[in-house]
């Protein structure tokens, strides 16, 4: 049995999405920047996709810049804004952002910017009051993710957006984990810039977008032929973009039902896994992505759990240092107050469209066996 429990990492391209993409690899291979019919058909498809994508977050089509994915969108949002507004040199973000945001901020820090990295509480929640208190005269931007990719905590971005708007500061949110899963309205939430990615919602890898509110100036990072309203040069990834819009359409249609089903499966999974002695939930119980479960187990190490799960056909992930190239435990888990030893024993299980109740039950059964096996080997575990 092969069970995929890592939907927060990536998802398979949906059949309907693949079908919509296919012609753009062959028959409809035109360059959208060409003037003849074949090119213009590709142009129409890209622009139609832009409308669909914009509509999903209540934005205008011209506010959407297609990119190569979430990481590029985060880079373009933060660096692009910084380069276009050189008089303000202070940026506020959080300690639990994705590396795409954190490393971009650190790079700016090395280049003369001052950064405030906000703490979060034990559930991973950012306090909007902390955002307000961190604001200075020279604050350019606040960047807070919509939901955390590791522990699934959904941040109060509407409140944070309101504070930013009131103070005349730009607000960027990384919505890679939430687009198509949790409702987003950039107007209602006072969002100025938003990053999204296709491959987390059953679209293809290599495509994403950045929403930039009308009137906000950013500097492009990729120069060339002036595509995407001069904000992102390079021939458009037509198949990817069309697929992204198809994935968005599908997600929009299914969001309510899917969210309900996944929440049910998630809650059952959490309830059963927590029956394992000395096992704990990371993140918030309810302010949480419907598809995310994250635990830590006393006395064992996460990479060993992952490798054993893999042996049983189950794909999952961990925040353990042993599975990272740096031998540092997850910055998210340490930020919510876990010590190194606890972070080492973490496990993330994320479910999706194809997950069945049977798979959840099997995963629970296997996990119990594995935790037991590793604890029997562990010198720090005592019954």
């Amino acid at each position, binding site marked *: 049995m092969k069970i995929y429990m890592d939907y927060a990492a990536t998802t398979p391209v949906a059949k309907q999405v693949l079908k919509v993409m296919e012609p753009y690899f062959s028959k409809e291979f035109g360059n959208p920047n060409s003037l003849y019919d074949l090119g213009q058909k590709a142009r129409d498809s890209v622009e139609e996709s832009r409308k669909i994508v914009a509509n999903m977050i209540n934005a205008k089509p011209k506010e959407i810049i297609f990119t190569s994915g979430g990481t590029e969108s985060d880079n373009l949002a933060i660096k692009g804004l910084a380069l276009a507004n050189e008089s303000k040199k202070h940026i506020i973000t959080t300690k639990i952002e994705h590396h795409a945001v954190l490393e971009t901020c650190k790079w700016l820090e090395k280049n003369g910017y001052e950064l405030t990295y906000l703490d979060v509480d034990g559930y991973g929640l950012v306090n909007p009051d902390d955002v307000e208190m961190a604001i200075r005269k020279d604050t350019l931007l606040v960047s807070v993710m919509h939901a955390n990719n590791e522990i699934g905590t959904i941040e109060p971005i509407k409140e944070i957006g309101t504070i930013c708007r009131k103070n005349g500061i730009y607000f960027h949110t990384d919505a890679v984990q939430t687009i198509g899963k949790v409702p987003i309205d950039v107007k209602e939430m006072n969002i100025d810039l938003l990053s999204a990615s296709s491959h987390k919602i059953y679209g293809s890898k290599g495509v994403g977008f950045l929403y930039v509110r009308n009137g906000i100036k950013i500097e492009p990072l990729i120069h060339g032929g002036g595509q995407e309203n001069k904000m992102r040069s390079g021939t458009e990834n037509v198949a990817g973009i069309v697929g992204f819009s198809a994935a968005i359409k599908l997600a929009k249609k299914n969001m309510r039902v899917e969210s309900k089903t996944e929440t049910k499966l998630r809650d059952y999974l959490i309830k059963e896994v927590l029956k394992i002695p000395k096992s704990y939930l990371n993140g918030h119980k309810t302010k949480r992505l419907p598809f995310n479960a994250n635990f830590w187990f006393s006395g064992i*190490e996460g990479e060993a759990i992952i490798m054993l799960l893999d042996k049983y056909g189950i794909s999952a992930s961990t925040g353990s240092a042993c599975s990272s190239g740096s031998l540092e435990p997850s910055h998210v888990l340490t930020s919510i107050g876990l010590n190194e030893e606890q972070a080492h024993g973490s496990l993330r299980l994320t479910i999706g469209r194809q997950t069945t109740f049977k798979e959840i039950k099997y995963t629970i059964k296997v996990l119990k066996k594995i935790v037991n096996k590793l604890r029997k080997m562990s010198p720090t575990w005592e019954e």
Partner: protein
Amino acid sequence: MVLKYSKKVMEHFLHPHNVGELKNADAVGEAGNPVCGDVMKIYLKVKNDKIINIKFKTLGCAAAIAASSMLTDLAKGKTINEAEKIKNTDIITGLGTLPPIKVHCSVLGAEALHNAIKNYRKKVKK
């Protein structure tokens, strides 16, 4: 980061040899700490200066568990003087190969054994 383990490492990780404690051990050695993620504990039973039984308990990743298992295989049946010469590179050779970032697991293994031997020598002197 993706770690590619050798077949031998996976074998020892999935079916480790000599797991457990020795209740009447002649010496115990430990290495690592929970903060760095790996803790190894080695139990020795010695007769006529020869390691007649050895067991381990390890908290750690697949490489740490495989290294412990390989270490016990290497040390079992050896005299104390012979076992003392076991180096971390012997563990790596035994396992075929270890990803560079996991070499420290083999270092811990050797350290735990050497600590056990040290403790044994102290005990015998008394």
